[in-house]
């Protein structure tokens, strides 16, 4: 007659042996995962802190509104114009692609089209620089327009993807109500579907602009030889712009230039951070509104 071990009812309820080891391992990995998040956020904090601490000194009204050497006005204006031209080209095409994906394409067509957009999104920006150089600059001259074409290609998949997500959220009931009234497809798309999704489409576009505004690689080939004193709004000549100017100053290795570059970095980073945080908040809101 063997005796079965009766657990001691008075034993403390703490893990022992194998379980204890397993829990330790689990605790350790939890700590490691938290540490990883701290590393990433810490790196972001250090970069932003450096940009703010070193850039704030450089910025005053003259810095924003006058030309070289007292300020960087022409570069700011140029970046604004290039980004604007790029968005004017990319936004209609992007929204129409999104419409095609949600309204017209079958499963097969949308698969191919989405793959195309992903590939476009994955193209290295320096490749787009070479592309616009070969297409628009070689044997002609550098131009802000050539840069804008490259930035438009960068924005296109972002706008198309973002708009598609919002268009998919447009309530079925709205479309069905419109169909029930006997309204043609194109009318209901233009007067019901698009207006409902408009807020989301605009924020998706803002996110794309924030991404494209800091792109340097294409502009190095498309619009890098310019006069930093000259305010230019003509996109068919080489335009001063912020990213290329930061790049040049960083290559020159002169301390005053560094201060100027930090100042421009601060302006660029604050635009990008505010635009993307604001757009993200708005996008979340309009998605909530559409899906409720």
């Amino acid at each position, binding site marked *: 007659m063997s005796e079965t071990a009766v657990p001691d009812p008075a034993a403390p309820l703490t893990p022992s042996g194998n379980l204890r080891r*397993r829990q330790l*391992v*689990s605790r350790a*990995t*939890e700590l490691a*995962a*938290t*540490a*990883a*998040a701290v*590393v990433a*956020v810490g*790196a*972001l904090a250090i*970069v932003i802190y*450096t940009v703010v601490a070193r850039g704030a000194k450089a910025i005053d009204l003259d810095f924003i509104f006058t030309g070289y050497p007292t300020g960087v006005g022409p570069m700011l204006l140029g970046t604004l114009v290039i980004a604007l031209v790029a968005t004017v080209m990319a936004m209609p*095409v*992007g929204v*129409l*692609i999104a*419409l095609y*994906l949600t309204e017209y*394409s079958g499963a097969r*067509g949308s698969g191919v089209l989405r*793959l*195309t957009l*992903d*590939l476009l999104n*994955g*193209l*290295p920006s*320096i*490749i*787009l*620089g*070479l*592309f616009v*150089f*070969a297409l628009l600059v070689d044997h002609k001259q550098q131009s802000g327009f050539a840069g804008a074409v490259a930035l438009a*290609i960068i924005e*296109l998949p972002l706008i198309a993807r973002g708009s598609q997500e919002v268009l998919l959220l447009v309530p079925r009931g709205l479309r069905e109500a419109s169909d029930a009234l*006997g309204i043609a497809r*194109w*009318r209901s798309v233009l007067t019901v579907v698009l207006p409902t999704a408009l807020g989301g489409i605009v924020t998706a576009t803002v996110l794309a602009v924030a*991404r494209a505004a800091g792109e*340097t*690689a294409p502009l*190095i*080939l498309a619009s*890098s*030889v310019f006069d930093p004193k000259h305010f230019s709004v003509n996109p068919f000549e080489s335009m001063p712009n912020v*990213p290329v100017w930061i*790049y040049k100053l*960083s*290559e020159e290795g002169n301390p005053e230039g*560094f201060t100027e570059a*930090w100042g421009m970095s601060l302006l*660029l980073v604050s635009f*990008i*951070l505010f635009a993307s945080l604001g757009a993200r908040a708005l996008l979340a809101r309009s998605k909530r509104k559409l899906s409720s």
Partner: protein
Amino acid sequence: MSPLRRRLDLVGDRALFGVCLSAALIAAAIIVLVGYQIVDGASAAISRFGFAFVYETTWQPNFGEFGAGSLLFGTAVTSAFALVLGAPIAIAIGLFLTLLAPVGVRGVVGPLVELLAAIPSVILGFWGLLVLAPFVQAKVEPFLNGALGFLPIFGSPETTGLSVFTASLILTLMVIPIIASISRDLFQSVPPELQDGASALGATRWEVVRGVVLPTTSSGVVAACLLGLGRALGEAIAVSQVIGAGSELQSSLFRSGDTLASRIALQFPGALTELHKASLFYCGVILLVIGLASNLIAQAIGRRFSYQGVAAR
């Protein structure tokens, strides 16, 4: 309905479809056109050097001798380093955001990690040049050389900190947000019943991750890493600012080097001869082929993966 309106609607429907379809075709046309222009720009170098360009390591613009071997090497080393260091961190962040962080922390940390991707590469490179490189040179290189100096990759420290090592660190910062946000979405898609089942069987949190979360999402995570790799391969600006533009093959990570993309950014604006330009275009061709390949493989893996299938089984 009046016949006029009916006719107008017919035209309108066709027109809208036509416009949307042509927008879709534009997207496809851009890809084809980019490929064509890059190869066309490289044609002089392709006919001159042939395939040997890919492994030849001489790069002497003054003598018209070009080979991308050392650049390919530099690209491979920096991207591999960035991925080896960045992928575990990024996957851990994804796990932290889905399984560990309280909702409030999740809502803050998630967007912050994504903001890391929003910082323009020229600013990250500038920061790398003035802040990270001196730090790496003064602290990290001597430390690694002292601790692991018997490995040839951790050679003796150099004077500037502009090195393959620093460039890889910057690339690591760039791949982390990409992999982290994709893997977070993947982990969120793991059916909670599976996780709860494992927990009910007595699995600890880590065992749930190892036994359920990672196996169900592994192919997606691999795809995410490939997308990160694509980003690291193609980064030109930030790398060109901190890598030091060296031309020889070096075993030590602390020496200067160069990558395909950064060589294009550094030398193209000053390229004098047509052959020099064509050779840089040839680098672009190599970059385009590797980039598209890693992207396509990532898509293929990502598409085969479907969590609904897992849930249904």
